[in-house]
């Protein structure tokens, strides 16, 4: 007797779960078919988010100083060009700062990081 009552309870519970899942499935199908997700996003969510992003306070990126890269700007000033100071090109910038004009490079063997500098008569 006890078991059958338990079974009946289980059955009822299962029926409820299946019923709710079935309703949710049908409800979601209505959302899908009538494009209700699209309409919600288009008419409600997007205008709300658009206002939010437009009202957001943001730091003014254009206030970033041009010379923030100290080493680059100082070295580059010497020969009037922007040079990357990282990796092998650091040497280019240092040589340039020391008065060597950079006009062309000869390529070394692969794996040698430093290009050979060639003086150019201006």
């Amino acid at each position, binding site marked *: 007797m006890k078991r059958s009552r338990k079974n009946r309870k289980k059955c009822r519970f299962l029926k409820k779960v299946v019923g709710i899942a079935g309703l949710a499935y049908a409800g979601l199908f209505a959302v899908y*078919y009538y494009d209700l997700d699209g309409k919600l996003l288009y008419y409600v969510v997007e205008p709300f988010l658009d206002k939010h992003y437009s009202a957001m306070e943001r730091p003014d990126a254009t206030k*970033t100083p041009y010379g923030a890269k100290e080493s680059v700007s100082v070295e580059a000033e010497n020969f009037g060009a922007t040079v990357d100071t990282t990796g092998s090109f650091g040497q280019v910038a240092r040589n340039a700062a020391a008065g060597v004009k950079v006009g062309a490079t000869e390529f070394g063997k692969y794996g040698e990081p430093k290009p050979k500098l060639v003086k150019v008569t201006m």
Partner: protein
Amino acid sequence: MSALTQLKKLQKAAAVVTEKVKPVVAGAVEKVLPIEAGATADTATPAKTAAGLKFQEFWYGPKHEDRKLGDLYIPGTGLYKHREWRGFRDTMYYYNMIWLYNYGSIVSTIMHNKGALIPFLKGTWRYRWMGQAYLPVLHWFDRCLEGMRGETLKASAWHFNGITRAVVTQLCEFFTTDKNLNHGKETEKWSKTIAHKETVAGATFYPFRDELYHIPLEMIPYFVTCHCNNHVVLHYIDAVQGIGLPGDPCPMCQAEAGLFVLNDMPDYSPVLITTNEACDGSVATAILQDWFLNRPLFAFPQPMRWDDPLVQENCQREVENCWKFVEEQFGVKFNWDKYVEYAEKANKMTLFEREKWDVAANTPNYPINGVGQALYRIFYSQWGWRQLWADTDARVKKIMDKCVDRNINTLPKTRHRVIAWSCAPLYYSAWCTWAYNCWGLNTVINMDSLMFDKLLRTDTYENALEDMAWYNEMAPMRMMAVGGHEHIFMLWHYMEQFNCDMVAMYDQLQCKGMQGVVGMFEDEFRARGIHAFWIPHALPDKRTVSRKEIRQRINDYMFTVMQEEPLDPTLLDFDDDNSW
């Protein structure tokens, strides 16, 4: 026995039973109802009674000519009065395996990335491109998959699922690393992530995989947003013009710089690797990015004439210098074994891509539509190998094999086989879906798909380096667009190879390089007697040439030159100016 093993056994048993029961049930159903196995709306024998015809329309969906897809739109918005009824099976497939599955897939991808949920929500609140562009992603599926049926619907949708999961993965990587969302703190992951311009091939970083992350700078905040919601990018274009940039340079470069002007870019890496691909407009973008980011930068150039033998040595040295830069900045050594492992995995994908092209070129069985082919290919080849791509390819291969084995005509209303050339309008990549539905123009292949078509040798370091240099040069737009006019004329070769009889020629009005060859193309089209229509556009900026104007151009060509009638006249003219 674990629960998972039991479940798998049950699944196998269920599949065996289903296979046996299916034909019996189908046979019984066919006796009672007016349906035939393997038939479609266009091939089924019409029922004799009115009720039978109604049932057939419910089961198969309306015939192509009776779909009236244009009548489904709410004017101006691009929203649907109701989504398309594709027949019972395809509608249920779309609902279950595309709409529900992809919403679920997005949530599960976020949950699988440990600790990503809260940063993801914060990122949605913080970044305009995230909230506005990616929430309506399922509408992007709708636009691109409109009118698709059967195996074409399935295979194309898996491509979009792959792209979506890749986007969500990158979003999770962005937001879990981002200093802006982490009170300015540099996390361990931040110090292990490489930022590089979206046009630097992800394959470059195979030697550092599993030790370092690498995220393309603009792929998610710019490139994919234009496809999902074309309004968002306009904010960034306007922002960079607001600080004095003239309006006529490439709007892609403008938008990429505008993200920084509006401070709408995650801060996720201690370094930046830039490149001059697609053109010197990208160099200008990199200068602005360098100004705003102010951190160690490596400029990784690609030669403007991409296959010039004289520049190959230099290209190889640049690849090595890039690797050295990563080594120096992150203190991580170049790992040859990792390179071999990932290059070989990537090679498998390239081989499968060639198999796909073979089917596309030589049979009517190719189950991927034009926009699915274009976007999936450019996304995976640019970002590099990932497991999710391999999973997607495995699924698509099954579908494609089925189509070939059973000789399924996947796009049966094809009137012309089209090759799309040059770079496409990002705000209307779905034009080829529209063109098929309206005119029967089947875009078989496009230029960007043909990039990176190179197997990477892994036998010796020298060969690997040489191939990496070539691979890096075969980037989108450099190889065939602005890489020299003789390369862009590879069109004739590919047109023949893919058995195409028509060209959709993109005309990026703000690309100075491509504008220079318009006249040459006109001459060649005339001399060769090739049918070609031009698609003018301004890459991400829909304000220059609207979607509606693009459609009008194609309509005019089809009416006046081809003297053909549309398959679905409701698609000729509709207003989607304010749609996503």
